[in-house]
């Protein structure tokens, strides 16, 4: 599907002179836009904090320091620590072959890389159950050898890798296509080995785009709910990630505790957005340099 174009990159900002328009239209639209932002984006963030501290700081600290919460944090970190580096390597490899070479099946491959964006996370979880579940193709074999995949860490990792697969590749492919191959060709012409070329030319030129993709990949890996929920089995203290822990607490009517844990994830989102803005700013400068 060509519809999944690179929507993750916001427009490059060139602050233009204020459009000449009727003042009341401008004020009305600006107010409306800020209202939409406030109502749909800011209010939820404020509400998370408010609900988290509704029963006081003590209850908040208790919820955060609960051993089950600690285990969920650990599991979430482990999952991200496995998925993000693997998807980074995948993204670089995919971008290299797609942006630098012509080969039959290239556009099919691009479509397949995009596919996880348009598949429901629940279905992403389901397919791994079909393969590795107790009635699945290989599930019996793996479980029989003491290495269960579903309702265990490997399943969580697989489901997370599926939903985060496109992030780094989608960021790098348009960037590398835009940059063109000339500098890499020049590097090879000057006698550099493949390895030298990658470290001295390719990587420095894509580093901001790469970082951007990694941040988004990480946010999704740590926050994924649907796909992980299907394969994890919600075993407290064993296969419970942070988002799943939020759900369990909420469904047990421990609202304050649920929101307390949710502040951790909201904090992750805020940090992600901040780093993202910085990276965007750096990247924009780099693009301006490259095109000047």
């Amino acid at each position, binding site marked *: *599907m060509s*519809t*999944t174009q690179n*929507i*993750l990159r*916001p*427009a490059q*900002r*060139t602050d*233009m002179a*204020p*459009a000449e328009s009727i003042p009341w239209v401008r004020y009305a*639209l*600006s107010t*409306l*836009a800020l209202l939409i932002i406030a109502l*749909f*984006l800011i*209010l*939820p963030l404020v*509400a*998370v904090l408010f*609900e988290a501290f509704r029963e006081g700081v003590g209850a908040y600290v208790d919820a955060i320091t609960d051993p089950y919460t600690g285990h969920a944090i650990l599991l979430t970190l482990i999952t991200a620590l496995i998925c993000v580096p693997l998807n980074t*390597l*995948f993204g*670089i*490899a*995919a971008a290299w*072959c797609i942006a630098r070479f012509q080969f039959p099946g290239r556009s099919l*491959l691009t479509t*397949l*890389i995009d596919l*996880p964006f*348009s598949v*429901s*996370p*629940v*279905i992403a979880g*389901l*397919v791994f159950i079909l393969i590795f579940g107790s009635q699945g*193709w290989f599930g019996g074999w793996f479980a029989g050898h003491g290495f269960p995949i579903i309702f265990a860490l490997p399943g969580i990792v697989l489901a997370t*890798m599926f939903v985060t*697969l496109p992030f780094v590749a989608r960021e790098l492919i348009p960037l590398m296509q835009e940059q063109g191959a000339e500098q890499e*060709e020049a590097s090879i012409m000057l006698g550099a080995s*493949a390895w030298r*070329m990658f470290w001295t030319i390719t990587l420095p030129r894509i580093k901001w785009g790469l970082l951007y993709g990694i941040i*988004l990949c990480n*946010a999704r890996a740590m*926050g994924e709910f*649907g796909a992980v*929920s299907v394969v994890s089995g919600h075993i407290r203290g064993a296969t419970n990630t942070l*988002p799943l822990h939020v*759900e369990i607490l*909420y469904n047990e009517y421990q609202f304050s505790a649920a929101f307390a844990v*949710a502040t951790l*994830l*909201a904090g992750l989102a805020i940090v*992600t*957005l*901040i780093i993202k803005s910085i990276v965007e700013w750096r990247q924009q400068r780099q693009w301006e340099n490259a095109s000047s």
Partner: protein
Amino acid sequence: MSQRRSLLPGFGLSLGVTVFTVSLLVLIPLLALVTKSAELSLGELWHTLADRRVLAAFRVSFSTAFAAAFLNLFLGLIVAWVLVRYPLPLKRAWDSLIDLPFALPTAVAGIVLTTLYSPNGWLGQFFAELGIRVAFTPLGITIALIFIGLPFVVRTVEPVLQDLDRQQEEASTSLGASRWQTFRRVLLPPLVPALLTGFSLAFARGLGEYGSVIFIAGNMPMKSEIVPLLIVTKLEQYNYPGATVIALASLVVAFVMLLIINGLQQWTRQRTGRD
């Protein structure tokens, strides 16, 4: 052609890694979905899909995803328009916040929206006074999907707005058009493909969305049960064939929708002569 010999190194390695990973994570799992469904007879297939509860879930998912994506066309256009064209204090911060739905885990979005829109919540109480229930109804689902879909529309429209040629507007004004006419006839046509793209992305995401919806939906069969939840329910009942068939059907339907929208998009592009 002469791919076997190229100046740049690493083709074999990078293609190998890519194809291996894509096969393992995407191709084989989706094939599993298809082959598992194919194990069912046509009768069983029909029986599963024609179930009233299943049909109702599809109706709920489609109508809410469509309504949310449609409303996002307007909300997203207004936000993008203001962010690109008007001077605003703290513009960078507002702009960064647009991506919050991408970055905020869906479970968090789900519980906080539920709390806000429940009958005694900050926003829900106003609706309650008007006699409107938001949480635990399709309206609540739509609200959650608006939250999830907003950045798709804003982020696809922004770059196009950015690139619009100011001189065309000035030309339109100089030829005597009113501001509304200029907007309708000069500005809107080039935005249509981007709006359609944003719509289809938001719609596709809305069809599959799970985390942010299940809390606010109330999940009443026939009324506010969405397709992804139905799949999970079937799974929890160990009804794997049922889950698989519904999953495949929703994938197929989603792709058909995307194809239609894609075609529509190309058609508008050709008509307006823009790329």
